[in-house]
């Protein structure tokens, strides 16, 4: 069954099918949130919120809508809401201790992979918007067309964002190497 069929079934009252969608999407969404917020607990809660919202607003799903962009759009709204409420932008964190903690939240195997550590520190130093576009396109390997739907912009625009984010990541990485 495709995601879309499952979601239509949920919409039509077969709520059990929601657990199948949960199985398919909870890990990517959890990763999406944690790598944007650098906070595992928050990532947990926000992931939970996505699926609660999916069930609550099931009637708003339209058959012709691709499921993946739809649920990611929901995910995006959820963390936007969260940021608005808490009025904290995570790139505002600059303290060294805080950085260490936050990276540790994401990177469990720091000792083993130095490059991985560098990736997440560099990622942390980007803006959430830049992190987002890299997570979607590079980590979760979504198609540009899908990302364009999620971000509500054109495919060309997505490409620009991707290029800039990669370039920015490179710069942050080089800064680290200098230290």
């Amino acid at each position, binding site marked *: 069954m495709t995601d879309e069929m499952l979601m239509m079934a949920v919409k039509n009252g077969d709520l059990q099918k929601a657990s199948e969608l949960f199985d398919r999407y909870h890990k990517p969404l*959890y990763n999406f949130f944690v790598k944007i917020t650098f906070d595992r607990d928050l990532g947990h809660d926000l992931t939970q919120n996505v699926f609660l919202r999916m069930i609550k607003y099931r009637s708003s799903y339209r058959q012709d809508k691709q499921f993946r962009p739809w649920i990611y759009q929901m995910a995006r709204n959820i963390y936007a809401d969260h940021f608005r409420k808490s009025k904290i932008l995570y790139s505002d964190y600059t303290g060294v201790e805080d950085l260490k903690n936050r990276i540790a939240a994401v990177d469990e195997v720091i000792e083993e992979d130095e490059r991985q550590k560098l990736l997440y520190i560099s990622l942390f130093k980007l803006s959430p918007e830049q992190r987002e576009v890299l997570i979607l396109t590079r980590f979760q390997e979504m198609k540009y067309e899908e990302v364009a739907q999620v971000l509500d912009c054109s495919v060309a625009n997505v490409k620009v964002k991707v290029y800039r984010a990669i370039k920015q990541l490179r710069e942050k990485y080089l800064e680290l190497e200098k230290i």
Partner: protein
Amino acid sequence: MDEQKMNDLMIDYIDGNLTGELKEFVTKYIEKNSENRRKYEELKAAMSLLEHDTQLEPDNSLKTDFMLALIEEVEAEHDRKVKPIKKSVWKLSPFQLAASLALIVSGVFIGMWLMKADSNNQQIAEIKKEMEDTKRLVIHSLTDNSSASRRLQGVNASYSIGDADDEIVNALIRTMNNDENANVRLAAVEALAKFADEPKVLNALIESMETQADPLIQITLINLMVKLKEKKALDELKRIIEDKKTMETVKDEAHMAVFKLS
């Protein structure tokens, strides 16, 4: 070509998404001068850094919490739409039965998760009760004499009960041996085959070869024994071959099975 297009192409190039002329074009561009080469190397390095991403595993409570929320929603929905399932099984519409069966599936599933997380005993008790009710429904539908398809549905529903449940297994064995409809008996054999590693079920399957008179079921059982590589069935197979009442086609199958098993 403007710079942004070139940047996009370069990303596609590094990802290995380009072929033919376009690929050559980018190769030439990179080789054209040292600045282009540097740009390419930088991009490549950043992109290879991105490959060090690793998938984080959420802990189990994420699923548990979700399932609890889902149960609540399902129950709310259930209260809204479906009357209690206490009333006579005979009066249940196929739709209601199907809805109840859907509950058993989720019940087992949710149950497993809840046990794992070892939380909320009351929920577990409720789910167990729900499973119990639904089990009753399955067993009752297996005895519905008015409709073979209803009984078939009962057999199919037993698949949703993951582990061998004693009552369900007993009911399936009764159906396999006594149901008047061969398709229903056939379905029961197939459902029981799933639990054939349980000695009780295996014995029932072997014994059933003796009592089944329908070639369809006999042949299905014989082939099942071959598939299970079950040497214990050899005596019974030989009996089938020697039995004068056995149809030729069944004997052929039994001969083949004896050959494969010994």
